[in-house]
């Protein structure tokens, strides 16, 4: 067994017991990145010197008997839309940020550092987290470690692929409409979107501020719980972060939630769902039934097509405002040829942004513009309330909601790039949780005949991450898909 086969929890135990040094763990991950990432392209930047220096410091502190924190010596990857002041660029996979180096650390990066983690590099994403395939990156697409001709999902495809290929045990992503859960499903790993406000967004480059949320990736539920534990909590610098105590997620993880009433929305099993994905998800539901859970069919009438429509108005409207800051003045790229100030803005943004970002800024600008505001933006906000009500009603009856994370397994590179709407529909089961601010997780629930991973999505009410993780763990204990690694991760170790 290779060091990179260890989960974060196993690594942590080994480091604390001094069976493994932080330096050895870092070296193993850096070697795996070196070996695999020319094929997978999960990382935008790797920081071997920083990582080794940091690991050596953790080892020194361990030897001195100091408290080294929850993630002592564990190598972690961070999606490249989170600010790091370590000298690595923060690119958001966009040309417009150019060579920008953040002058401060995001809250989550400070938390990782305080808990002894070793950040090995920053992962690829769809530009500004806008996309579902990690193909919209100015620095090239990431590939699915299970099938290199397929996408890893997105927008946190780099983090999902890095964990799936065992280049790192855990990684951070961000989820605005499914950007953690969908790539987790397509790459066969665990990915969680916590409740809006559970993790501080300070230092997360803003896309849609009422929807964005940072969350963990791991190969196991326990690893996701560990990383959430280290990053959750109130931060006064993000006024939407909620001052609620963070429970001990790991302490309760092995306690099953019983009795358990599972809501199965009929809308999540309708047209557009790949039959093999539906089959794997129903098998997973049967496992819960066998464990004593009760399945109840529920209705979420506004949470598929209407949710996508709502999302693409709300998210783009917020994006059009947030991305106004890229003006070629304060940071990043400026076009060298221009006639005046306005022309400089327009050329810098034309040359700096990719197509998907342009489309979304324009769509949001249109939805907010005079004459269309009521018809689009206000309408979408009203439907957002209907979506929220659907979930409020559902949670009066059931403890959690389950269904597929993504309607299809990983699709081929280039398959959906020409038709933006077909790409948007990749998020048909995930966007509603963002609009309603509730928590969701995707866990592996098997493979298609072609060997592509399938994800089960579990959704619970706000600030119930402890129960969400326990429910996920119930299934994982019965069907441990995390033991399977993509063939590529096993080659020539």
């Amino acid at each position, binding site marked *: 067994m290779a060091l990179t086969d260890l989960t974060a929890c196993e690594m942590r135990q080994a480091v604390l017991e001094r069976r493994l040094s932080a330096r050895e763990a870092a070296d193993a991950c850096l070697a795996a990145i070196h070996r695999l990432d020319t094929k997978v392209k999960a990382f935008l930047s790797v920081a071997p010197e920083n990582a080794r220096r940091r690991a050596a410091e953790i080892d020194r502190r361990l030897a001195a008997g100091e408290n080294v924190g929850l993630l002592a010596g564990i190598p972690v990857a961070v999606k490249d839309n989170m600010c790091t002041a370590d000298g690595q660029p923060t690119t958001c996979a966009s040309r417009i940020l150019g060579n920008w*180096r953040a*002058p401060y650390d995001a809250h989550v990066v400070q938390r990782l550092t305080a808990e002894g983690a070793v950040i090995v590099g920053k992962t690829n994403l769809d530009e500004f987290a806008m996309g579902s395939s990690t193909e919209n990156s100015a620095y090239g697409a990431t590939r699915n470690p299970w099938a290199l001709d397929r996408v890893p999902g997105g927008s946190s495809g780099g983090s999902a692929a890095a964990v799936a290929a065992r280049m790192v045990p855990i990684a951070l992503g961000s989820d605005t409409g499914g950007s953690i859960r969908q790539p987790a499903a397509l790459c066969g790993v665990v990915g969680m979107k916590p409740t809006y406000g559970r993790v501080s967004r300070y230092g997360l480059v803003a896309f849609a501020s009422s929807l964005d949320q940072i969350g963990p990736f791991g190969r196991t539920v326990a690893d996701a719980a560990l990383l959430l534990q280290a990053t959750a909590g109130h931060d*006064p610098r993000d006024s939407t972060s909620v001052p609620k105590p963070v429970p001990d997620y790991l302490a309760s993880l092995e306690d099953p939630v019983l009795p358990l009433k599972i809501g199965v929305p009929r809308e999540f099993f309708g047209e557009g769902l790949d039959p093999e994905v539906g089959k794997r998800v129903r098998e997973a539901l049967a496992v819960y039934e066998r464990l004593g859970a009760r399945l109840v069919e529920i209705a979420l009438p*506004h949470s598929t097509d209407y949710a996508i429509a709502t999302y693409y108005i709300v998210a783009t409207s917020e994006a059009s405002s947030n991305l106004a800051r890229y003006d070629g*003045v304060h940071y990043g790229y400026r076009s060298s040829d221009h006639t005046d*100030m306005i022309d400089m803005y327009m050329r810098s943004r034309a040359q700096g942004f990719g197509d998907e970002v342009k489309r979304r800024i324009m769509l949001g600008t249109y939805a907010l513009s005079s004459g269309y505001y009521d018809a689009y933006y206000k309408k*979408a906000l009203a439907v957002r309330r209907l979506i929220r009500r659907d979930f409020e009603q559902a949670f009066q009856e059931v403890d959690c909601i389950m269904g597929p994370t993504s309607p299809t397994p990983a699709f081929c590179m280039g398959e959906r790039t020409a038709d*933006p709407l077909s790409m948007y529909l990749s998020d048909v089961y995930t966007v509603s949780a963002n609009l309603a601010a509730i928590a969701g997780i995707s866990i592996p629930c098997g493979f298609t005949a072609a060997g592509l991973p399938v994800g089960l999505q579990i959704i619970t009410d706000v600030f119930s991450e402890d129960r969400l993780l326990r429910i996920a763990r119930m299934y994982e204990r019965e069907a441990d898909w995390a033991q399977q690694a993509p063939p590529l991760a096993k080659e020539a170790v």
Partner: protein
Amino acid sequence: MALSAKEVLKVGTLSRIRLTGEEVEKFSLQLSAILEYVDKLRELDTRGVEPLAHALALHNVLRDDEPHAGLTTDQALGGAPESDGDFFRVPRVLDEGASA
């Protein structure tokens, strides 16, 4: 709802994004398809439904007005494409002859 080439150009200007003729054509088709999809929302009766801008009941968060350290001038200017002393440098905004 379809977006004409003229409307796409106007939205491009409002968005401060210079578009080529080819882009106008492409975005006009793509944005029209997306808006047509979004028009599904019209099927829903939302009379009397209060818009929901934020799904959590968050209130204004206040803190004491106490000075604390922020970015230094050097840090703030560190990523600027062009700076001049303590300032961001931008192309000329006013004409030579314009009075202030």
